[in-house]
Structure formats: C-alpha cells, structure tokens
C-alpha cells in the first residue's frame, strides 16, 4: 500500500521535475518575447511568443463566454425555475458532456465552421474551447448555487424581488467562491487542452491578426515540435511546456486559495 501511494506521488514529482528541468534550461527572455520568424523549424531564430499570445486569445474569451452561458444554466437549474425532474435530466446531460473527449469537440466544431464557411480560425478555436469548458464551469457553479440557503432566497422574495433579480443579485453573490473556483479551473483546462484546438485553430508562425486567422497555441506548439530532430527546436517545445505547466498549476493553486478567501459577501 505504501508502495502504491509512493508510485502516485513519485509520478507527479517526475512529471513536474522533468518539465521544469528541461524547460528551465531552454527558457530565456528572448524566447518569450520574440515571435517565430523564418527558418523556425530548422532551428534558426525565433521564439514562442505567437504560441503564448495565441493561447491567451483562445482561452480567455472562451472562458468568458463559458462563464456567461454557464451562469445562466446554473441559475436556471434551481428549483425556483424548473421542475426537479427536468433539472435532473439537465444535470445528467452536463455530466455526459463533461466526459466527452476533447477531440470530439474539436471535430464537431470544425465541421460546423466549415459548413458555415469560416474554416480554421481563432473563432473556431474559441467556440470549441467554450463547449469544452462549459460543463466543467457549470458543474462547479451548480454545486455552489445548490448550497445557498433557502432562507436567503425567501427573504429576498418576501421583499418583493422577482425570481431573476434574486438569482442574479442574491444567489450569485452568495455563491461567488464556488463560481470563481469553477471559472479558474475551466480556464486552466482551456489553456492546456490541445486536442480541441488542433483541428480548429490550425497552426501558424505568426501572431493572429484577426479573429478569422489560424493561430498557434502553447499545447499545439508543444505537440508539433516535441519530436523535432533539431535540438534548438525541441528546446522551444520544452520551454513552452514549462510555461504551460507553470501557468496551469498556478491557476489551480490560485483557484483553491481564492475560493477559500473570497467569502467576503458570503453569509454563513
């Protein structure tokens, strides 16, 4: 038994350690701030700025969109709005959506985008990431909204507010820790996920100019460059993995910390 827990613990240490060691050695200021230039894949100059910016361009709007849609769903799932049988069905579909592999979301999204006529673009990537993050964010929000005490809501109704007002002003404020945790975890997943944006956002060498351009992103860059025969190109992949891991782990840690701390408006 002690062997098994140490295997689990050791594997995380190995993973983090490997990435940190390999990545830190190839990390340098110029890699972060320079975008890639000609001869990129052959080992000439250039950095990974396009990937970093691309990841931000994809993940931040996707998380915002998923938050807006998700808060609507999570608030609607309360008993005030909908019959418990229906909300049970919706929660079940959210659980199913949560388990779908991300590559299916990517394929679905690119099929729709091609049918519309847009093709691989930042927009397609954002939509795929939104669909991916939506179940995660909504589930966390739903869990914390369920825990809002009913007396709070009834107090608000008794003062004459409408259901929507209560939902937006009272329930949402009360559930802020859980909502924040959910949003940050969704963001972490969105930044790190490669399969969904592999098809939808393409892969280019330049910083995307408009929302209809393809873009590189950190995970896809790592995926494409990790096995290159040229060591300096591989070094970029490791540096990217280092940055990605640091970003995602800090988001997770911050989300845990913030959700404990931001109970300022929460009435216990």
């Amino acid at each position: 038994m002690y062997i098994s827990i140490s295997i689990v613990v050791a594997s995380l240490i190995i993973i983090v350690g490997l990435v940190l060691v390999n990545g830190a050695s190839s990390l340098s200021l110029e890699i972060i701030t320079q975008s890639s230039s000609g001869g990129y894949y052959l080992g000439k100059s250039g950095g990974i700025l396009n990937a970093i910016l691309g990841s931000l361009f994809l993940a931040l709007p996707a998380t915002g969109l998923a938050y807006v849609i998700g808060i609507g769903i999570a608030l609607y799932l309360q008993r005030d709005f909908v019959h418990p049988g229906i909300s049970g069905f919706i929660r079940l579909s959210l659980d199913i959506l949560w388990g779908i592999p991300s590559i299916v979301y990517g394929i679905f999204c690119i099929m729709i985008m091609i049918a519309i006529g847009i093709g691989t673009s930042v927009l397609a990537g954002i939509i795929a990431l939104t669909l991916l993050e939506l179940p995660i964010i909504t589930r966390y929000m739903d869990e914390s909204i369920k825990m809002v005490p009913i007396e709070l809501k009834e107090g608000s109704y008794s003062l004459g507010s409408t259901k929507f007002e209560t939902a937006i002003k009272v329930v949402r404020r009360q559930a802020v820790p859980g909502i924040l945790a959910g949003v940050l975890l969704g963001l972490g997943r969105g930044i790190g996920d490669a399969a969904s944006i592999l098809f939808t956002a393409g892969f280019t060498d330049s910083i995307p100019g408009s929302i209809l351009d393809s873009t590189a992103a950190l995970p896809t860059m790592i995926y494409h460059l990790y096995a290159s025969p040229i060591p300096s190109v591989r070094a970029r992949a490791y540096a990217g993995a280092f940055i990605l891991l640091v970003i995602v782990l800090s988001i997770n840690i911050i989300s845990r910390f913030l959700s404990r701390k931001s109970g300022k408006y929460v009435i216990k």
Partner: protein
Amino acid sequence: MEWRRIRDCIGTKLMLLVTVFVSILFFLIFFTLLSKSFLILETTSISELLLSSIWNPERGQFGLFPIIIGTIIVTGLSLIIAVPISLLSAIYIAEYAPKRVRQVIRPYIDLLAGVPSVVYGLCAFLFLVPLTRDVIAPWFGVESTGFCILSASLILSVMVFPIIISLCVESFCAIPVELKESSLSIGATKWETVKKVTFRASATSIISAVLLGFGRSFGETIAVNMVIGGKAMIPGTLFDPSETLASRIASAYGEMMSIPVYESALLFMALILFIVVIIFNLLGVLILRRAKKRWNY
C-alpha cells in the same frame, strides 16, 4: 412600465434558451458525427470497416480492426495497472494516513488531475520512451523503439490515477463510521475491516470510478498520440507500436480535409469513440448517483 417585470421575463427566457441549448448539444454532436459518417458507410460495408485489417486511405480501404484492437489493449492495460494502485492509494489516504499527510496529499492529487495532457505526453516521451527502449525491453529480450503500447498504457494509467483515487477516497470517507467500528469491535484487524467492510460497502462507487476512468482513458488523444508509434497494425507484443482510435484521428489532421471519403472514415471513428465513451460515462455517472444516494453524500 413594469421594467422589473420585463427584465425578469427576458432574463428567465434567456436562461431557458441556454439551458435548452446545453441539453440538445449532446444530440447535436451525435447527429453531426452520424450524418458525416454516412458517406463511408455507403461505400464500405460495416463488417469490412470493423473487421478488415487493411488501412489504405489512398485506395479507399478502411479496415479499422487493428486500430480497435490497439485501443482496447491500451485502455485495458492502463486500467489493469491503474486500478490496483489507485485503490490501495485511496485506502491509504482515507484510512491510514495521518491527518497532516492527508491534508497535503488530497490537493496534490487534484493538482495531478489538472496537468494538461500535452505535458503528460511530453513526459512520457522524455522518460517512459527511453525507459522502455533501454531498460524494460532488453530485460525481456525484445528490441523496441520505445514508442509502443507499454509506454502509452503507463502514461494513460498515470492520467487515470486522480479520477479513481479522488472518487474512491470520497466514497471511503462517506461510509458511516459505525460500520467500521462495529467490525473492529468484533475483533477484525484493520486490513480485514477494509477488505470486508469498506470495499464491500463502496463497491458500487469503485465500479463507477473504474468506468469513468475507462471513459477518460479511451478518449485520451494527445498523450497517447505522442508515444504510441502510429503504425496501424495488430500488436504482437507489448513492445510493438500501434494506434488507438483517438490517436489516429489526431494523426490524420490536415490530410482529412482533402478526401471526402477519408474525412468520413475519420468521422466514423470519432462516432465510435463518442458512443463508447458516452456509454461508459453514463453508466459510471448513474451508478455513482445511486451510490451517493445510498450513503448520503
């Protein structure tokens, strides 16, 4: 003008709209994949698709059998490795660990769950591939490049650890203390209590955790793609390269757009992936709900 009432009405209708959208999203995805698969289902019979071994997209021959076998082997092996380790770790965390250790390890395991799959794949590439190539394979007397089923299964089982461990720890902690205490009071040792009481009581949760882990492992694309070797052949030994459904779909990125039949074949593979993962996840979630209702957590 009753602005507040109008706002309430519009707000509620908007929320209804997004909720309906999410409920039908699953069906939308299913029908999109299905409709795009019709092309390949017309040109190739189901039995040839699923049972033939010839994969030659240029000539229009799509035999998925080796890929399906590869997927089953990789997923099965990863679960065989992961389930005992995760169960034992979960028991340690829930029953035997001192409180300080438990407070550190549980968030630690959740962090493990948040690592992106590319990073897992990169670590498999940096660590497992050389390990398999230079240490494990020669030990068995086999030549291998390291890009094989064993590497993929090992990294998949690491990815599945957090799911199974966290679900099992949650369910072990939710078993009422009275059950365990009455077993100990009759004279059972701690391990006997664990084996006969805790495992029996949380059997449904353990099963659902394994099912959910299976779903995750079946659908994992990137990490597997990076270390599995990409040759669509039925593997002879653990050290042969192979392909899984998901990794083949990712590998064909770029080529698929040009040939409609190829694209349709890949979408058919995505459809199979979708259906299998949905079935396992659905079963897992439903069983987990029943277990939660039974033990009130």
